[in-house]
C-alpha cells in the first residue's frame, strides 16, 4: 500500500512488476493510467500544469487508499500522482489495485480514481490559445465520487 507524489514520469510496467514481486496471493491486477489530452470541452490544450499542496496531498492520497482498503478486499495497491507541467500524451496518474479475485480489484480501482478527482488537493491549469485557464471542477466528477457514499 503505497502513495507517491512526484514531478517525474513513471513506468507503469515496472511499477506493476515491483508491486507484485514475490506475491503468490494475487489473482488479478487492475492498472489505470490517466493521460494529458490535447483537447478539453471546446478548446485546444497545449500543456497541463498541476499545482498541489505538498504535505496535504500525501496525507489525502493515503487516506483515500486507506478508505479503499476498508471497502474492498484488495491485497496490494499503489497510487502515483504527478505534479508540474505535462504535455499532451504524458502520464499524470497511476492507480494499481491487486486482489485474489478480479472483481474487488476493478471496483477498488474505480473507487480510487473517482475519489482522487475530487478529494486530492491538485489543481489543473490548461495552456489554451486564450492563455492559461484553470480547469473547473466537473459536476460529473462530483457525482462519480458521491455514488460511493
Amino acid at each position, binding site marked *: 500500500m503505497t502513495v507517491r507524489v512526484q514531478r517525474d514520469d513513471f513506468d507503469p510496467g515496472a511499477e506493476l512488476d515491483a508491486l507484485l514481486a514475490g506475491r503468490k496471493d494475487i489473482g488479478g491486477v487492475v492498472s489505470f493510467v*490517466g493521460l494529458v489530452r490535447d483537447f478539453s470541452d471546446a478548446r485546444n490544450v497545449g500543456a497541463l500544469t498541476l*499545482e498541489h*499542496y505538498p*504535505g*496535504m496531498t500525501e*496525507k489525502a492520497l493515503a487516506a483515500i487508499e486507506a478508505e479503499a482498503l476498508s471497502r474492498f478486499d484488495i491485497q496490494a495497491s499503489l497510487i502515483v*500522482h504527478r505534479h508540474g507541467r505535462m504535455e499532451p500524451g504524458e502520464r*499524470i*496518474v497511476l492507480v494499481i489495485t491487486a486482489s485474489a479475485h478480479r472483481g474487488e480489484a476493478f471496483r477498488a480501482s474505480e473507487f480510487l*480514481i473517482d475519489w*482522487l*478527482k*475530487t*478529494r*486530492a*488537493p*491538485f*489543481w*489543473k*491549469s490548461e495552456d489554451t490559445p486564450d492563455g492559461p485557464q*484553470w*480547469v*473547473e*471542477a466537473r459536476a460529473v*466528477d462530483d457525482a462519480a465520487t458521491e455514488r460511493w457514499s
Partner: protein
Amino acid sequence: MKLLYFAWVRERTGVHEETWSLPEGVTTVRGLIGALSGRGPGFAHAFADLKQIRTAVNQETAKLDDPVSDADEVAFFPPMTGG
C-alpha cells in the same frame, strides 16, 4: 498562523504562503475569510464567492464553521481537480 493559497485563490490574492496574526474575536474559518476579504481588492475578489472556496485546517478538509486558532495552518483553494 500560517496561511496558504492555491490555484486562482493564490493568483487573486497575490500570495502563496504567509504568516498572519489571527485577529481578536475571529474563531472560525468563515470569520477568517471575512477578515482576509478586508485586506484589499485582490483578497475581496478571491473570496467573493464562498461556494467556490474550499479550505483545509492543518491539512485536513474543513468547513466554514470549523474552528481556527492562531497556531493553525489554514489553506484556501478552489474545488480540487485531481486524477
